[in-house]
């Protein structure tokens, strides 16, 4: 499984990168894209939307199923990757480059409570 050690993770298969400006970048893991198969549709949240932790933020649909993407922590959406809805296959090709949205966490310390790479690897193997 491809699980970069510099990222944080959730049990619901989102990856989270903490940026220098205090925002976080969110995508779905390589394991998630593999489970879903070929993605054909991605719906991203509106910029400015306030999300609670574990609230539905985006939708990724493969040929076989639709799956929600959840906010890893509470916060406000600051930016979305508009290139992804036009080319959802980018997530299959490189799940860690094809990020979905950025958030300003309500409390950046919440990110510390997310899974590290080892803990995610264990959770994903279950």
């Amino acid at each position, binding site marked *: 499984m491809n699980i970069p050690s510099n990222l944080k993770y959730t049990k619901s298969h989102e990856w989270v990168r903490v940026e220098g400006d205090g925002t976080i970048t969110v995508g779905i893991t390589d394991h998630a894209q593999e489970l879903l*198969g*070929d993605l*054909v*549709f991605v*719906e991203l949240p509106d910029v400015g939307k306030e999300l609670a932790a574990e609230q539905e933020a985006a*939708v990724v*649909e*493969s*040929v*076989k199923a*639709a799956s929600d993407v959840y906010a890893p922590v509470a916060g406000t959406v600051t930016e979305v990757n508009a290139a992804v*809805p036009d080319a959802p296959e980018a997530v*299959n090709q490189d799940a860690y480059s094809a990020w979905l949205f950025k958030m300003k966490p309500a409390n950046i310390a919440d990110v510390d409570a997310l899974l590290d790479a080892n803990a995610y690897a264990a959770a994903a193997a279950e």
Partner: protein
Amino acid sequence: MVDFGGWDMPLHYGSQIEEHHAVRGDCGMFDVSHMCAVDVAGKDAKAFLLRLIANNVDKLKEPGKALYSAMLNETGGVVDDLIVYYVADGQYRIVINAGTAEKDLAWMGARLAEWQYEVACVPRRDLAIIAVQGPNAKARVWQVLPEARSATEPLKPFYSAIVGEYFIATTGYTGETGFEITLPASKTEDFWMKLLAAGVKPIGLGARDTLRLEAGMNLYGQDMDETVSPLDAGLAWTVDLVSPRDFVGKAALLAHPQQKQFLGLLLIDKGVLRAHQKVITSHGDGEITSGTFSPTLQQSIALARLPMAVAIGDQVKVEIRDKLLTAKVVKPCFARNGKALV
């Protein structure tokens, strides 16, 4: 891998979309051994099938000819859809779905006991079925099985021929040319490996579903079941209400004419149509029975049960999560023989 009617089956071997394109553009193979061949043989085999299924086996005049139809219950609901092959006088083979096989066999056994016909219905669990489909499918099969060429080359669609231990039919579930090959289970692995070596790509259940949906073919349990009349599932063409013959479910169908139309939807907005989504039309609501993303059209498509007044070309709304997306009503056949039809 997923559980499908009690069988462990691959959803895809690699990319589902690439598998789909392989069948439309070249050829692919499906292990469909989960489907159950049942040999129906005996002096009364024809009389039995005439009463058992909704289409008329009297249409099967030449040995080898195949007929798609449905087996109905007394209320006109679909017990299963199936293909009947006329092998010889007093000898038929039917192929039924995996998830319904036990139920179907029990149903057939009960009708046999009730009608007192001299017929044996033998499920052939010793046989496997490999479907090879696509524009190059037949050539690849002949490469692996050269002895089958002379008997199968002249076959029109929906016929079959027996070549040694191979029962080879020009049927399929993709809208492409090709064969469905029934053979001893013990020979299957070797046959599969030879096809693989000849360049035939393995195709999973996922692409099987997108291919059949593009071809406008129904899936049992999704587009119809025991609670749905074949007339409301786009299967009127496989029901013979013209001949004086009586069959199980006929009285119910005559008493309850078609209530809904079974049509296609093409999503104009971005998104993916899925089963059970509500369709809102100016003539009332309908429901999607099967939906997916069409790799051929690069657009989402669906089969739906819609009010009778809806016309082809109408625009309708589909409720997807909290949004109403626009779709166009089309004939329920989206792509066949490598080409888009809508």
